[in-house]
């Protein structure tokens, strides 16, 4: 390992993370006149994070043909009025422009014979909102095109460097430190403004191709004393129990059905309006209830798909089709088997906790902006409006890049606090130098075993959440400080486990705080959505005692246009469970 005390990479705008949000931030920073824009990716920009594996569909409002008011209302209603409504309006008015800009670069979208975007009714949209539609794209092609564009625009892309902490001088963020994931070399970056676009945390859990998303950015913000928000909200998802398979959204949009072990299409009882197009937390909660009633396992059925529908899948998500062919699910031009499907703790991917930002993507730390899943789902409210994560990565990334340039331009040359840099270096040397102790793989599995319990992340109860908290505290105290690594590759697992454990504790403490059931928070001891007492944002930061501090902020509804009804309503999952004869409470 080499100390780079005199080898500091300097940037006007430093972008940490090379997915859609980071890519857009770097491009827009360049367009706005930043001279030196440096983008860091822990793998290869364009091939890491969520974006390269995004499953083919995104929700984009086209004001020239859609009813924008319908989009606005549905977004706020699905978000249970915890949205920042100003962000929703900004997002809806910006996303379509950026999508059209991507098309001019050569990003391929599915088109009709007339050359228009091919659009299908989106999950959670009914005939009452006929313009809430999604468009289809090709994940890998989109990110390959973005990478080419970023390089052509003159952004300096540094691959295979993992950022571990933010550098601060007084309260201002002035750069970051990390290590080269191949050589292990310690790296230092100095920047006038920094954009965090590191994604969320998926806890290396069951969902496919998200194993590098371990909450690095959230952990960095917390350690630097910044605010995180919306961390109680689990981004529920469901996935194949057998294979690493992506594409549930597009499967559903083409007519796939969930059935229980009795062959019943049970989701019609849990959501009579949207049925198989329901919200992801309803999928997850319904699966938990069916399992509780002895009607599991749950299967995903596409055996009725036509050759044309399969052709569409081959075009949009070719990798998933390959996997299903190898797994014997698809033979020739036909789905021949149903697949077992299970809910998964998806952390806060596409919805939920992250750095608290304002409309300019400014975090609570001066000099630091956040975008995509590194930021909290501020526009989405309680629910990642289906497929909104990708367009939010675009709009927030572009916004963060632009606003970072303003801050960078207004700033004199910033200086790194050498004492802090030295401390991070000595911490890195001592942590990486540990050759005996606890295998990080052990800690990762223990964390997963705690957070994947159905009475913690699905239909939760106070006692179970408190037990989970106790166990995560034990892991953080008794395992994390003693993790060892044999080489730089396994050191990545040490960082993974450290950040995952911190994020898990923050999530569990916030879940314990919200004493109601709202969207993905489904607490059978508090089964009502409480619009009298709980129209609140939960904000987390590190106090001077280095502990997790939680504060509640009233949603600033007085400045928003749409107003909720102030009442108590039984969460739909508990209402539906009664209809299905499932016991709870």
């Amino acid at each position, binding site marked *: 390992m080499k100390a780079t005390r005199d080898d500091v990479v300097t940037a006007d705008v430093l972008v940490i993370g090379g997915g859609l949000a980071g890519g857009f931030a770097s491009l827009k920073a360049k367009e706005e006149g930043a001279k030196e824009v440096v983008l860091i990716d822990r793998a290869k920009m364009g091939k890491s994070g969520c974006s390269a594996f995004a499953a083919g569909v995104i929700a984009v409002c086209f004001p020239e043909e859609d009813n924008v008011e319908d989009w606005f209302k549905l977004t706020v209603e699905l978000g249970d009025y915890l949205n920042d409504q100003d962000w929703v309006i900004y997002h809806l008015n910006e996303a379509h422009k950026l999508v059209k800009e991507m098309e001019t670069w050569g990003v391929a979208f599915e088109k009709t014979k007339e050359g228009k975007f091919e659009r299908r009714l989106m999950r959670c949209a009914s005939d009452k909102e006929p313009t809430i539609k999604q468009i289809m794209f090709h994940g890998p092609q989109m990110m390959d095109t973005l990478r080419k564009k970023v390089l052509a625009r003159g952004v300096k892309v540094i691959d295979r460097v993992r950022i571990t902490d933010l550098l601060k001088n007084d309260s201002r963020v002035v750069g970051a430190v990390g290590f080269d*994931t191949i050589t292990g070399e310690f790296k230092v970056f100095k920047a006038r403004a920094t954009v965090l676009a590191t994604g969320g945390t998926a806890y290396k859990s069951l969902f*496919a191709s998200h*194993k590098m998303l371990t909450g690095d950015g959230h952990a960095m913000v917390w350690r630097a004393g910044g605010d995180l928000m919306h961390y109680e909200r689990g981004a529920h998802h469901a996935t194949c129990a*057998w294979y690493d398979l992506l594409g549930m959204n597009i499967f559903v949009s083409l007519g796939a059905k969930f059935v229980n072990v009795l062959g019943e299409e049970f989701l019609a009882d849990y959501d009579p309006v949207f049925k198989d197009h329901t919200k992801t937390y309803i999928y997850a909660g319904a699966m938990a209830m069916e399992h509780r009633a002895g009607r599991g396992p749950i299967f995903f059925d596409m055996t009725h798909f036509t050759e044309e529908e399969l052709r569409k899948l081959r075009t949009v998500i070719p990798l998933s089709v390959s996997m299903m062919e190898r*797994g014997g699910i698809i033979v020739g031009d036909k789905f021949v088997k149903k697949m077992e499907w*299970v809910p998964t703790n998806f952390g806060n991917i596409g919805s939920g906790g992250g750095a608290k930002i304002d409309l300019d993507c400014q975090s609570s730390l001066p000099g630091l902006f956040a975008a995509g899943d590194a930021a909290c789902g501020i526009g989405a409210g309680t629910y990642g409006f289906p497929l909104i994560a990708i367009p939010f990565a675009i709009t927030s990334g572009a916004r963060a890049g632009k606003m970072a340039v303003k801050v960078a331009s207004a700033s004199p040359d910033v200086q790194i606090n050498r004492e802090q840099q030295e401390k991070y270096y000595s911490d890195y040397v001592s942590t990486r130098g540990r050759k005996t102790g606890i295998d990080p*793989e052990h800690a990762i599995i223990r964390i*997963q075993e705690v957070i994947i319990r*159905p009475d913690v992340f699905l239909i939760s109860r106070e006692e179970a959440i408190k037990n989970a908290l106790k166990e995560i505290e034990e892991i953080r105290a008794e395992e994390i400080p003693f993790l060892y690594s044999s080489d730089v590759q396994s050191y990545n697992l040490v960082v993974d486990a450290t950040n995952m454990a911190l994020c898990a504790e923050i999530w569990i403490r916030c879940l314990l705080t919200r004493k109601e059931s709202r969207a993905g928070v489904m607490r059978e001891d508090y089964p009502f959505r409480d619009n009298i007492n709980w129209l609140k944002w939960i904000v987390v930061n590190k106090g001077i005692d280095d502990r997790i501090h939680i504060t509640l902020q009233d949603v600033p509804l007085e400045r928003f246009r749409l107003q909720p009804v102030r009442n108590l309503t039984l969460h739909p999952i508990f209402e539906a469970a009664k209809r299905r004869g499932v016991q709870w409470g």
Partner: protein
Amino acid sequence: MGIRRIDPEKCTGCNTCIENCPMNVIILDETKNKAEIKYLRDCQSCFLCEAECPAGAIYVSPHRERRIPLPW
């Protein structure tokens, strides 16, 4: 089970799989000029290596490599 095989007969040592793997699973054996699987347990079965390999030398299994707890 993730990446299972890199066919040494077909591999040209072009580095494409190594450059594209998000998890640093594959390395180049410089003496043989062949790509080799080194960190199998970190493979996330994303298929990028197989999809990008210009020589068709790689096979990825759809089964998971790591043991990940199920909710039940």
